[in-house]
């Protein structure tokens, strides 16, 4: 079955969506990610959508669901790389993706995840993975 790969980097999971997703594939990603957060004890999820040419209501809802589910599982989600034309279209469609944290690119998204992890650890973590106990 077709799947979108999920990579682990330290305490984070990384996903880069490179294909035009049909709805079933988006649902599979949602299920796989929530399972992987628990299995790999991830504290953050970064989803790169810079290859996506459109985000319609279904894909938008999937991203919002992933963010909400991961939050309940104590992991932050950041969606990065949205194309400007996609952002314009999404808002006109009626989706503001409230509840989904976004960053311009992977680098800023990773910085965001590290910062929220550090804040969650009482500000003790400096940089990558200081809190491993």
């Amino acid at each position: 079955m077709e799947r979108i790969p999920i990579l682990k980097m330290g305490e984070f999971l990384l996903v880069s969506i490179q294909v035009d997703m049909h709805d079933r594939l988006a649902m599979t990603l949602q299920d796989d990610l929530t399972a992987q957060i628990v299995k790999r004890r991830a504290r953050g999820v970064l989803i790169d959508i810079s290859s996506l040419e459109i985000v319609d209501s279904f894909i938008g809802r999937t991203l919002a669901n992933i963010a909400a589910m991961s939050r309940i599982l104590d992991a932050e989600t950041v969606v990065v790389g949205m194309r400007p034309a996609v952002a314009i279209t999404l808002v006109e469609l009626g989706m503001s993706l409230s509840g989904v944290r976004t960053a311009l690119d992977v680098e800023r998204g990773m910085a965001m995840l590290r910062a929220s992890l550090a804040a969650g650890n009482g500000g003790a973590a400096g940089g990558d993975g200081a809190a491993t106990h």
Partner: protein
Amino acid sequence: MALLRTEKLPVQSQDDVVQVRQAVRAWAVELGFSLVEQTKIVTAASELARNAVVHGGGGSVELESVETAGRRGLRLTFVDHGPGIADIEQAMKDGYTTGGGLGLGLGGAKRLSNDFEIRSQPGAGTWVRIVRWK
């Protein structure tokens, strides 16, 4: 209005929805649409194609490039033979859904198009036509 070119595609499955998106993209590029215009019509097509599959039990879409008064546009006509819509006004409202979605499909597709027309009756399927002008 002059009809320049036409193509009919099936809209029976989730994979067809992806095919429709790609075909609409190719046509929009060919018509010289800007990136934002392309993205809007492809997104609108994706919503309507999904509606035809999920609510209409499958159907078809006709892609047409049209010209009127020196202006070119991309016209998409989605037809399904599903249960139809009893209250179109209600179905157009954001947040109204019968399929477990967000209910942004019809209203969103309308906002992303320049022209929008819908015809439906209970038991007689649904016909939706949108045009995006260049």
